[in-house]
């Protein structure tokens, strides 16, 4: 099972990949509508928004947290 290079999510099924393309190394949550991988800033913003929505952290703290998480992932390190 592959792990998304951009957010670390395990990719178990075809629906975890953009357009079901299992040859890609990033997941559906890290793709733009056209299927290409989000930029660093786009990913940091979407990850921070996810942290705010699911854990309720302050927006600035969430963005810093997102960037620190991303620093450990292959796509951004």
């Amino acid at each position, binding site marked *: 099972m592959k792990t998304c290079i951009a957010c*670390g*999510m*395990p990719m*178990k*099924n075809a629906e975890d990949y953009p357009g079901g393309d299992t040859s890609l190394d990033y997941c559906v949550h890290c793709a733009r509508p056209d299927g290409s991988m989000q930029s660093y800033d786009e990913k940091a913003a979407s990850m921070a928004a*996810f*942290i*705010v*929505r*699911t*854990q*309720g952290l302050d927006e600035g703290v969430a963005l810093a*947290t997102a960037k*620190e*998480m991303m620093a*450990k992932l292959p796509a951004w390190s």
Partner: protein
Amino acid sequence: MLGPTTTRADKKQATRAALISAAMRVYELDGIAAARTADVAAAADVAHGTVFVHFPSREALFVAAIEDFGGKLASRLHELAADGAHVREVLEAHLRGLAEHEGFYSRLAIEAPLLPREARQSLLSIQSAISFHIAEAAERDEAASLIKPIPTYLLFNTWIGLVHYYLANRDLFAPDGSVIERCGAELIEHFMSLIVPCPNQKEETS
């Protein structure tokens, strides 16, 4: 047993894993902030200096232990929380994953606010993986009117608050063993009773 093709890198990796495993045992007994690297080395049956061959500092060792635990918990949760799982099933999977290293995680829950920033960030990464699964399940269950509409962060924080309180006080709730084993099912039942709509509400929303 290590085979003839075992490389120096394999041995190094095995020693690193043994040190992390030993550190988790020592943290469980002594606490993360108070644990001594000499005790970790003794528990892993290596020389004290070996710890610093693998980890540049005491802090680097506990960050590595937290990340190792977090990676295993996330994979376990991904395995256990099957596709299309309901909130109850994700909570059960979460507790099963935590139970595998209950002592270590309890220390982490107690000491997190006092640990260096990098260690706290590692805990936040763990919580993000858990909240991802809870959020996905909650979205499905809310759409099917199986749970009340509740902001995801309050749903997650209420659950984590409940679990952490029991883990932080495990000596009071389960002095002779696992607090998850003893109280886990009751905590899930209680939490579900808070988020499931009462019968009248369910009829109104359906």
